[in-house]
């Protein structure tokens, strides 16, 4: 494992890998910096008109779009020399101006030639074409960040709308941008939607006030509706199992994850996060202080017969309580599910979806801030907002301390894996560095 040197950035969410993994784009105040991911040499440096609040790579890794939300501007820059030349040989760039409407969020379309922005107050969502400079508006999207999603093959776009105090879903053909279908959905106040990996169903879940999950096919038929319980806070997160979508994992505020079989829509398993765990083949890693000088903490295997985990009850009078299953994330092979129960904020649970008891448990000292699976292998990296990077694989796990950079202490606030699973971007509040794993393969 190798660590690169530390570099600054101006916005934590604007440090991103290119989808092909060759470059890293960083926002530095009003500048966009593109570095080569191996050598970390500067590949591109562009100045924008205003402070860059967010940036996005185009899916084909050719362009980077920078969002300046204060000026409601998007500026798109080419990422490499190859994509930058245009018909008349000069450098290509593009500027999208939303005007009064303002831009809250932006995203690329899978064909890398369109950008979808959502205006302030969710007045409208606009699809901008970079080919012919045309645009069209989608009125009344529900949210800027959620509820707009392309399917996995990139052929359709589903948007959650709110019309006449009811929830609607609109399906657009992503090539011709024509409205294919628009239908009312049965939720009270839908929060988000998710395409199944085989693009056959879209699952929409309701606001946390009510537990309701509706599955629709793209022609508008309600395929299934699932409600585990009522009169309590409902769904917190949901995700399909990656390769084939045979399971849908729904994490809810009652600290349980329910797995549904996507063929029969029957509850296959109910993973609960009990306070006391009977030990059946569960590997428990506990972060303990170690004596080694350069590794203050290490993982110790906890072999105790029965384990008890503290369960913190969230206060009743606060909204968005810290309870329930915060994340239910699938490994890329779909064989493992990672969950975090916010009532037990220091513990990460790794499950095999077919078994009722977890495969592995990681008990940290501090609450886990961010966990990301390796996009390729079945391993994940976690961070707690301190200097330690935690790696877990099915054969073992380790704590790695990241040494300080030249400008002071380096703590890990968020992580981003490269798409080939060989490097991780460790992002601090104002600086970042890259951690290269599998160095031998890297160099060869």
């Amino acid at each position, binding site marked *: 494992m190798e660590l690169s040197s530390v570099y600054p950035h101006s916005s934590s969410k604007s440090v991103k890998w290119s989808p092909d993994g060759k470059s890293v784009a960083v926002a530095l105040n009003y500048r966009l910096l593109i570095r080569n991911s191996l050598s970390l040499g500067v590949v591109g440096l562009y100045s924008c008109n205003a402070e860059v609040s967010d940036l996005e790579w185009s899916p084909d890794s050719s362009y980077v779009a920078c969002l300046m939300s204060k000026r409601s501007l998007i500026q798109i820059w080419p990422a490499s020399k190859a994509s930058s030349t245009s018909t008349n040989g000069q450098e290509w760039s593009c500027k999208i101006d939303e005007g009064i409407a303002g831009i809250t969020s932006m995203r690329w379309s899978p064909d890398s030639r369109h950008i979808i922005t959502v205006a302030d107050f969710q007045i409208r969502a606009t699809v901008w074409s970079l080919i012919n400079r045309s645009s069209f508006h989608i009125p009344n999207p529900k949210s800027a960040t959620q509820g707009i999603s392309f399917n996995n093959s990139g052929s359709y776009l589903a948007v959650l709308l709110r019309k006449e105090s009811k929830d609607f879903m609109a399906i657009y053909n992503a*090539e011709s941008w024509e*409205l294919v279908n628009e239908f009312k959905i049965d939720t009270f106040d839908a929060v988000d939607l998710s395409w199944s990996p085989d693009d056959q169903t879209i699952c929409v879940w309701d606001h946390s006030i009510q537990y309701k999950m509706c599955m629709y096919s793209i022609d508008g038929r309600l395929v299934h509706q699932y409600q585990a319980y009522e009169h309590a*806070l409902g769904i917190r997160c949901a995700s399909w199992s990656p390769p084939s979508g045979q399971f849908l994992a729904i994490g809810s505020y009652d600290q349980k994850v329910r797995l549904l079989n996507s063929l029969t829509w029957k509850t296959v398993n109910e993973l609960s996060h009990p306070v006391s765990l009977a030990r059946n083949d569960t590997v428990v890693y506990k972060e303990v202080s170690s004596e080694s000088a350069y590794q203050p903490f290490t993982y110790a295997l906890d072999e105790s017969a029965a384990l008890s985990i503290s369960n913190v009850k969230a206060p009743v009078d606060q909204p968005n309580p810290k309870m329930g299953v915060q994340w239910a994330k699938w490994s890329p092979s779909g064989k493992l599910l990672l969950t975090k129960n916010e009532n037990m904020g220091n513990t990460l649970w790794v499950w095999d979806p077919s078994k009722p008891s977890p495969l592995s448990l990681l008990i940290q000292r501090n609450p886990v801030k961010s966990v990301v699976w390796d996009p390729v292998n079945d391993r994940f990296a976690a961070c707690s907002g301190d200097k330690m990077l935690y790696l877990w694989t099915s054969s073992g796990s380790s704590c790695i301390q990241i040494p300080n950079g030249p400008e002071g202490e380096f703590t890990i606030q968020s992580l981003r894996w490269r798409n080939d699973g060989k490097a991780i971007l460790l992002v601090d509040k104002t600086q970042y560095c890259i951690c290269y794993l599998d160095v031998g393969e890297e160099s060869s």
Partner: protein
Amino acid sequence: KNSNFARETNGKSASIKFASPLAMDWEQVYNPSSQSDVDFKNYLEKCMFEDENSIVNEDDERNELNSSTFCTEENIENSLKFINQTLDAFGYSCLSLNHNEDSVQTLNLIYVLLQSQKKGNLLREELVDKQRRIQSEKDALALSKSRLEERINQLERDVAQRKTKETMLQENFNRKQERWDNEKEEFQKKISNLQHKDTQYQHELRKKELLYNKLKERQAQLVAEKTKETKSGVDMMNTFRSSKKAIPNNGKNQEEMYKSVISGYDSKLSELRIENAELRNSLKDLQDELQQLMNLHKETAQQVENSGDSIQFQNRSISLNRISDHQFNMPFDLVRDSIEDNLKDAMAALRERMTDLMASISEEDNSVEVRNRFRELQKIVEEQDHLLQLSLVSLQQNHHSDHLDNSFAEMEREQLTRQKKWIEEQRSLLEHDRNQLNQEMIRFNNEKIQLQKEKVTEGQERTREEESFWEAYSTPKANKGKKTLASIQHTPTNTLPHIEMNMGSSTPSSPPVGSKRAQRGFELNLSPIAHGFTPTGRKQWAIPVDTNTLFQQISLKHHLDADNSMEKENQGNSSSSGEY
């Protein structure tokens, strides 16, 4: 004096029996010296006995006194002597022998005696009264005691009853308390859930309100800034090198969408069909395996019967209604019952067979190896059972749900392949074991034959020795000794039956037995594996034909036993014939 008298009588007689003063151990007092005294003494004894044994009351006493034959003309002196002695004993003054003069003395004495008698009577009456009173009191007390005891018992029972009732009620109460606590907890949970919901609602409302306010502000701003006209648009510097034009679809979108939906369903359906076919195939194969096993069993059962042995086991005709292959392709609904019944019957029959075999084998003191083999067989049958159940269950799941669970089918497939491998291994192990057993049996038989041969030779040697002995000592003396020798010869027959057996004509039936045994040994040489159990593709479930060897071994054992019994008979015959 009176008191003395009372004390003395009390000391002397155990009971308060106020017999006449004559009733005392007068032997101590009166020692007869002459025969007439002895007679007198005897007479007195008689009187005493009567006195002592009779219930005394005053009338009797008076009668006695009145008709006393104590003193007569003849024994005046003696009686006087006696009376004096008793008076002495009692403490009264003695009577003198002078008949005429001391009538005063006599009268006084009589008066004194009478007084004492009277006092005694009075005392006696008092005591009787007292006794009666005490007796009645005692009765009353006993009665009250029994009543009180009864009462105590009853109260105790009552207490016990109440205690049990109390414990029951306590338990009840505890249970109810638990339930109440549980319900309270649940209720609390529900309340907290609803409270969470409530706060979330309020939060959302507030959020919406804030958003609305912001929007109002913005609007106000815009209204104020109506002059500023800002357009929105794309501003591009230089077009793309390769411009990808948007392909207009002209309203074919809907069709495309439906096409994609349908193609998705098609692919799902084909997947399900494949899985269904696989499951049916595996079920069919399982049934085939089972049926082959049944058929084999039937064959071996017939074989054993044909060889004419009388083996004690019920020869049940286990037949499997052959379900044609095509039936397996029918919709599961229609065929389900028949398939299930078939398999269940087969399993039941197998189980019965197994118990029979167990029974028949456990009777015999056979080798541990056979028993082990048997256990292995049982295990295999159980495995098959289990697998059949699995497949039935999975088929049921098929039946109940329209779609199969891909992942679990995968897992089951994996499991099945694993088990197939394991059974293969087991089968090879069992074959190996069987071969070993065969070899050992052959060896054992050979050894046995050898032993017999040795003994035969030994016996022959011994007989030769004996014959030489005879010849050596063929003198008249030796003839006498012949008898003894004969008697001696007798003993060998008892101790070495085998020698007897093989000695010439006395046992005509032995050679055939021996040869039979040899034959059987040869029988064993035939490998029982050659039973046409040709492995086919999915034959991993095949139970090897151990049942056959099992039967053979059982039959062998029986024959051995029969032989032994026959040998014993022969032995008896020979011993009888051996008597000279």
